[in-house]
């Protein structure tokens, strides 16, 4: 068991999603387990990632040969396969000890997509119907599996995900000859349609006859929505291309989350770039840009454009955006509207709301901002306040840049201009 667990947890770890959020189930009658809308982290590994779910592959045997994947069929690695009962038992025992929020089950493709999906569904079905398990379940939707199986998976799972992995179609086909965008988008769109379908009758009933719906619980279908993952840096896409794709996924497929996973060289393959370390800074900036789209109402083409296709490694994208728009600042936080306050560097969603709330009671000043959690270190260049030196808001963006960067980085920036950044080199390759 120990050996199997090592192989099949180790093989699942490159799927970065471990979130247990977005779902709010009550504990089933006679069973155990519920879900918390915020999600709960149970531990953190030395790479600083949250451990929330028991993340496993049912098997690491795979018929595909994707260049970037450690489980590709041509790799000579130890292979293992769990029995359904083993995964069910481990999930329940771990859950009872409060090690985990639930299960995240994925798999290599054995025999066929349907055969594999059927096995994943069997685990979820047994947890839900035999053991009345109410904890979090995240399943992979296997591209190419039948719509009926994916629909059944969606009735048991809190979340489904289909990974894009490579953020452009040509690169995906180059690195994973057995895959294409259509095979990824088809299950995604199917899940999206089912989510709409399952939600619709509930609202119709609610408006026509409230007495009926009080007892009839509408059937659930992936209440925590669907997510995907893209590997960053295994192929030459720009950040602008990646954000454009992510933005489309949020709007059209209504994804809950897009995960970005800095490429880690697992396999020796001439199709893959040679890198010494995963591009963690780039990954971090992409997450920040993603946050701006989801919580700060930024459009992807406000963050980057064709002329600026890469995120700035030195500053967070909100800061970069503000420095590119000196015509909008400094802002008077006592008059500005919420949408603009949200765009001030150093102001978060919570503090933006507190500023609006505080204005009903008097003038909001720098001393209040500090207690509201605003990072004045960044905000002070962009707001007018009697307690802040006026000269700060008259600085040119280049001056703010130089003030916020440590002296060593200012020098580096100058020499940096002589050679294009590594991502650009890749993009032209």
């Amino acid at each position: 068991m120990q050996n199997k667990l090592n192989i099949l947890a180790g093989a699942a770890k490159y799927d970065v999603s471990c979130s247990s959020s977005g779902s709010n189930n009550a504990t089933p009658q006679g069973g155990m387990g519920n879900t918390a809308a915020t999600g709960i982290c149970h531990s953190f590994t030395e790479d600083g990632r949250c451990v929330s779910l028991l993340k496993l592959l049912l098997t690491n045997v795979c018929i595909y040969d994707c260049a970037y994947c450690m489980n590709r069929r041509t790799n000579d690695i130890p292979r293992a396969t769990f029995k359904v009962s083993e995964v069910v038992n481990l999930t329940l025992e771990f859950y009872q000890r409060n090690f985990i929020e639930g299960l995240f089950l994925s798999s290599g493709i054995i025999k066929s997509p349907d055969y594999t999906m059927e096995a994943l569904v069997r685990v979820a079905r047994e947890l839900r119907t035999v053991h009345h398990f109410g904890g979090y379940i995240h399943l992979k939707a296997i591209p190419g599996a039948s719509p009926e199986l994916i629909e059944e998976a969606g009735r048991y799972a809190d979340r489904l995900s289909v990974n894009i992995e490579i953020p452009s179609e040509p690169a995906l086909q180059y690195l994973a000859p057995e895959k294409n965008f259509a095979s990824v988008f088809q299950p995604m769109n199917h899940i999206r349609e089912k989510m709409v379908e399952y939600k619709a009758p509930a609202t119709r009933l609610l408006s026509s006859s409230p007495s009926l719906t009080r007892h009839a619980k509408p059937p659930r279908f992936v209440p925590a929505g669907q997510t995907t993952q893209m590997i960053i840096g295994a192929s030459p896409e720009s950040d602008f291309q990646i954000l454009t794709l992510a933005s489309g996924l949020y709007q059209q497929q209504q994804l809950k989350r897009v995960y970005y996973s800095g490429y880690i060289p697992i396999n020796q393959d001439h199709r893959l770039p040679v890198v010494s370390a995963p591009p963690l800074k780039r990954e971090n900036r992409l997450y920040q840009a993603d946050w701006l789209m989801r919580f700060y109402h930024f459009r992807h083409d406000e963050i980057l454009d064709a002329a600026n296709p890469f995120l700035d490694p030195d500053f967070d994208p909100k800061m970069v955006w503000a420095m590119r728009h000196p015509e909008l600042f400094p802002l008077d936080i006592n008059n500005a509207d919420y949408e603009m306050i949200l765009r001030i560097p150093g102001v978060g969603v919570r503090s933006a709301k507190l500023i609006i709330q505080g204005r009903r009671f008097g003038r909001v000043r720098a001393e209040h901002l500090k207690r509201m959690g605003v990072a004045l270190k960044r905000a002070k260049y962009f707001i007018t306040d009697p307690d802040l030196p006026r000269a700060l808001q008259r600085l040119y963006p280049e001056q703010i840049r130089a003030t916020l960067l440590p002296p060593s980085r200012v020098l580096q920036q100058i020499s940096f201009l002589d050679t294009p950044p590594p991502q650009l080199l890749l993009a032209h390759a």
Partner: protein
Amino acid sequence: MPSDLSLLYDGTFEGFLTTVFQAAFLKITPHSIESSDRFTPNLLSNPLPISTDPEKAERVWSALVQRAGYSHASMVRGAFLSEIPGIEMQIWHFQRKLFADKSGTFCGNVLDEHVTTVLNTARKVQHEAHLHQGFVRFQVAPDGMSYAMIEPTYNIVELLASHFSARFPNMPWLIVDGKRLTGIHYDGNQVQQIQLSEKPTGLAQSTSANPGHTLSDNPYQDLWKSYYRAINIPERKNTKLMLRLMPRKYWKYLPERNA
């Protein structure tokens, strides 16, 4: 009227609320309000012990709920559980302003320093309680009872009651605060707060106290430890981030970190 009195209470929330009642009754602003076991007298101090009266405490609490609403009243309780030195007077000022306010909007005034102190302190306490929804590690005893030990910075154990009784309704469990020797016990029906006379030895803390000790619950702890090691990605090593998210002070009762 300002006074040089230090009002001493028994450390409980009821005791504190009784003290608020008595200060209002005496029409004084005390110099300080302190738990008697944490009070250190000096030449200038003028201590006055207040004995806890559940009835008076209840009157203050219901007035608080009525004026502030349940969610803000809970924040007052949350801030109190922080046990941060001086938090009692901060809450006292908060309540003084709350009861003097005629508009009924005082709690929303995020420009007021006492409102933000209570809110920010309550948030810190809530955050630690949220962390412990994840960090509690149960060990299952042969009789089916599950035990866990924690040593949180703030006095949050009672804030875990509803979470764990809702999640494990059919499983009796006990969570002990090893530092304060308090705990919550769920018998499969309801949760009760308990007091311990001494730190329990045995299953609940044997992982850290007696690392060599053989436990009946070891197999799943060992599997959990292997799992924890297997999902780490060494190429992404970021110990600083891990320490920020899971500070060392919580490792004592986490089997995956305490070995």
